[in-house]
């Protein structure tokens, strides 16, 4: 079977701006792919093209090998949550969901079951105009799940959720992937997906700047461990003799790239050396993200 999602050579031009440029990536069933980039990087445009809402200038984006508009039963294939309110303020949450259920041949009972799942049953009969951002997101998530889809496309799903909600979402996405579903989840905050995603696709100004498993991206940080103290230099020599990649970091500190904290601990114990500090060094995942996206200034978003 074709992969859950294939984006291939996708380009979208709005007037003179290139929103997405020659972007390609794949999402396989059973995996969670974090789609990352700063605001305005082209994430939403890419997802909207994938969902047939926006036309591509060139390239293709397919779900299970077909364009979204060519799917026989889109709601039972792909569930999507896109950024934004997308509710009629005068219609109740329950009726919003039921209207979508009718359009996709899903029962009212399923809609009510999902309201229960996203903890909206109590508010479901109130007009949606009074919903908080978090409630809107949860209703949107319920809508995405209506057809029990094999592929989930979620644009900034954590927006507006409280910490418990984010945690719930994380566990929920994991359980969906464990059932063999593919999940494509966008975010402008790396930390949001760093505990969930298997793979990451990082884009900036419409172009892919990194695609890797999360583990690879973390390893790319090259951080290693920083050891400081009176005997640090001597420890460095011992480790180097053992074949470790060690560089000096001043007279009282070293940086060890390819040993774990425990490995170093053993050497310290055996050699009877004195140190004052042993800690992860180098860039955090967040810093790599800023490096990749050239957004080190990190203005408010």
């Amino acid at each position: 079977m074709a992969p859950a999602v294939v984006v291939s050579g996708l380009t979208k031009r709005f007037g003179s701006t290139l929103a997405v440029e020659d972007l390609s990536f794949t999402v396989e069933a059973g995996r969670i792919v974090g789609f990352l980039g700063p605001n305005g990087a082209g994430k939403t445009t890419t997802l909207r093209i994938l969902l047939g809402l926006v036309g591509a200038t060139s390239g293709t984006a397919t779900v299970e090998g077909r364009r979204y508009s060519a799917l026989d039963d889109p709601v039972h294939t792909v569930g999507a949550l896109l950024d934004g309110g997308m509710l009629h303020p005068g219609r109740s949450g329950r009726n919003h969901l039921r209207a979508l259920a009718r359009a996709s041949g899903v029962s009212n009972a399923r809609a009510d079951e999902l309201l229960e799942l996203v903890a909206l049953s109590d508010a479901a009969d109130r007009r949606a105009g009074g919903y908080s951002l978090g409630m809107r997101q949860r209703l949107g998530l319920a809508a995405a799940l209506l057809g029990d889809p094999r592929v989930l496309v979620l644009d900034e799903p954590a927006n507006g959720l409280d910490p418990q909600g984010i945690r719930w979402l994380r566990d929920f996405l994991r359980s969906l992937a464990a059932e063999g579903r593919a999940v494509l989840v966008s975010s402008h905050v790396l930390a949001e997906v760093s505990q969930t995603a298997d793979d990451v696709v990082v884009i900036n100004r419409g172009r892919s700047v990194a695609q890797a498993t999360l583990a690879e991206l973390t390893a790319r940080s090259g951080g290693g461990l920083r050891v400081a103290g009176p005997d640090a230099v001597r420890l460095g020599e011992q480790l180097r003799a053992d074949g470790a990649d060690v560089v000096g970091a001043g007279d009282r500190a070293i940086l060890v790239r390819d040993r774990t904290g425990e490995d170093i601990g053993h050497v310290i114990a055996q050699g009877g050396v004195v140190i004052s500090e042993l800690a992860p060094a180098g860039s955090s995942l967040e810093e790599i993200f800023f490096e990749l996206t050239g957004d080190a200034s990190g203005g408010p978003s």
Partner: protein
Amino acid sequence: MNRALAAELFKLRTTRTSWGVTLGALGLVLVISLGAALAGDFSPGDEPGIDLLEISGLVQIFALVLGILVVATEFRHGTITPSLLAIPNRLRLVNAKLIASTLAGAALGLVATALCAAIVLSLLSSRGIETGARSGDVAELVIGNAAASALFAAIGVGVGALLRNQVGAIIGALGWLFLVEPLLTLIPGFNDVISKWFPSGVASATAGTAESPDALDQLPAGLVLAGYAAVFVAAGLAVIRRRDVSA
């Protein structure tokens, strides 16, 4: 029933706005009909029955607004996104909206005219005034106004799809009917053409309430109005099919 149509009919009955427009139209017909039938000062031989039934023609405007809302509200609140996710084929979605609006418009026209006829004819009779309305004429008016309202709702769908901006579409449509058309009639020599062939005049002729002796008969008028609806819907569809939906 078709899923898309079922969803559109459900959406229509689950907002206050559509009920507000519908009940507002019927309330207005009720009040004006009562006022005219109770307080109208008629001389013998006026036979005002049919003339008073023209009151029900005002629901055509409300049907037009309802049709505009069915499309434009989705763009206003961004619900077009989930709607299109459920029904990605835009032709199918607009078609469902067209049928739902047309049905709603027809129902509104039917109920409004029947309501107006019941009030006017019974009150005039109870006042001992000769209505002059034969049941055949009344039936033609009821059907005609239902058809005119249905087609105005269809035009509304076309206009809504064409402009997508709710406020702009409503102001544009009402501005055309209440401002532009009346102003155009001021151009010497144009008056007859406009009252005979432009949407307001054609709608009145379809409903059977046109005053001009020159007006089209109900059936040809209905066909012309259907032609207007077809043009607006086709134009709206052409725009909606190509447009990026990005909010």
